[in-house]
């Protein structure tokens, strides 16, 4: 009986959560006439792909995608590599002030971005980097943020130190230990950082909004916003354009799901 109730709650809940998404898909596959006549139908009467090429050609979406992929891949790679370095430093070495620095790093998670936003903007402006990808990518080369460093460090701490010592005795350097032992054993944590980083960069709106001016430099998020401003009344095309923005994150999540959940779990984010 109890199981049955849990099932009902789970099904009811997931319907509520998934319906808006399914509605986006359905609308993207409908003709303009059908949307006007019967906007809520979740299964289109005459499914059509026409909205996708129409939206794609209305604005330079190809260049939006290229820009987003570039920013995302560069930031993600930088975040994983430099984040691993920093996490390794915090996880494996004793030095004066380490714990204070670690606490400082954690507390930056509580800092609202608005406090640094304006001076950082002025720095990039001074460097002539407005309307370039530098302000969106270069910060990722500095450890990539407290959250991912924390996650990696927690995971690195669970790897037995004896393994490090065995490699040291065999003459390996710390550098070698990090890349040939620690990182390969940290698949779930690395995957989790990759997924979070990908979603974070793919999704990023205020950075591109502040820094990118010319449409040929737009990323998907502000490109989509431009599309809405320009052709917002064509719901079918708008939803098709939205879906092009949504699908990569969902595909990545499904591909990485197994590791991802495990990474969150094992990193002690459960507060234990």
């Amino acid at each position, binding site marked *: 009986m109890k199981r049955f109730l849990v099932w009902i709650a789970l099904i009811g809940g997931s319907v509520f959560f998934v319906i808006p998404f399914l509605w986006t898909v359905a609308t993207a596959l409908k003709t303009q006439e059908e949307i006007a006549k019967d906007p809520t139908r979740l299964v289109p009467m005459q499914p059509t792909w026409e909205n996708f090429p129409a939206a794609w050609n209305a604005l330079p979406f190809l260049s939006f995608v290229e820009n987003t992929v570039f920013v995302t891949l560069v930031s993600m790679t930088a975040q994983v590599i430099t984040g691993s370095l920093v996490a390794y430093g915090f996880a494996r070495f004793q030095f004066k002030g380490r714990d204070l*620095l670690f606490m400082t790093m954690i507390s930056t998670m509580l800092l*609202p971005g608005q406090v640094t936003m304006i001076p950082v903007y002025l720095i990039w402006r001074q460097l002539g980097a407005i309307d370039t990808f530098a302000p969106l990518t270069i910060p990722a080369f500095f450890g990539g943020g407290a959250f991912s460093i924390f996650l990696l460090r927690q995971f690195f701490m669970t790897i037995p130190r004896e393994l490090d010592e065995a490699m040291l005795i065999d003459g390996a350097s710390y550098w070698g230990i990090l890349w040939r032992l620690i990182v390969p054993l940290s698949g779930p944590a690395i995957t989790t950082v990759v997924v979070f980083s990908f979603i974070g960069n793919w*999704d990023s709106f205020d950075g591109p909004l502040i820094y990118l001016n010319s449409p040929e430099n737009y990323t998907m998020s502000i490109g989509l916003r431009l599309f809405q401003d320009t052709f917002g009344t064509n719901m079918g095309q708008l939803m098709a354009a939205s879906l092009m923005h949504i699908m990569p994150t969902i595909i990545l999540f499904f591909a990485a799901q197994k590791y991802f959940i495990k990474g969150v779990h094992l990193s002690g*984010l459960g507060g234990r």
Partner: protein
Amino acid sequence: MKRLADRPAFWGWLFITPWLAGFLGFTAGPMLASLWLSFYKYDLVNLEYVGLENYRRLPLDPLFWKALSNTFAYAFISVPLGVAGSLMIALLLNQKVRGIPLFRTLFYIPSLVPSVAAAILWQWVFNAENGALNLGLGFLGLPTPQWLQDERFTLPAFVLMSLWGVGGARMVIFLAGLQGISETYYEAARLDGASHRQQFWHVTLPLLSPVMFFNLVLGLIGAFQIFTQAYIMTGGGPNNASLFYAIYLFRTAFEQFKLGKASALAWVLFAILLVFTLIQFRASKKWVHYEGGEA
């Protein structure tokens, strides 16, 4: 005397250097610069020292109070509801029934939708004439408000939308916390004759309280910075009903280029969040339970 490279401390510092440099260059330095700038009038051309003028003038600006009250209302309604919702879903997904991995994915999907796409999608859900919400409400014979055009309903609309994301990272963190509670606690409670309800209130909830605390603190900080949804869906309107603090700050900085005033606004926001975070840390001593005794 060992060589420098033989000392672990040297390597420790070397490995954390990227973060340390970034912290100084992109966080600590800009923080000080922003504090400094808040005592100036600056429009990208002229820089003029004005002392506390930027701060003194804020309370005289009706939009400042509007932005503040909107943001408080949004944060203090959406965060408790959202945390409770995430906990409920985590409790459901922690049950041993078939298909849990599928449900976990379905609940997670909304938080995979990028914020701009989510805003566009919800703008349509809230559409007064043929949005899904009003068509559903109309079908049930309920009132169908002009969600995003009627200032009385704009804030509730944003709260409702925020609840769509309760199955995301916060829920996963709760779930991990639940799965970390040792079965022995429940066995002991059952031996003492505790009912399911008693087990929840006296075992699950106390042991989950550190996670709850984490979610509340970060949730409040996040909610105070709500930006993208409002920027896209209403642009702060109608009649400033969704003028949130971050929108007000963004306009002041990047549309009016009053960079000194915007810096003062940022520090006021920071001070507010600091106070609330400290209050929560204080209060947490009364209700957050750490395994292994007093923390």
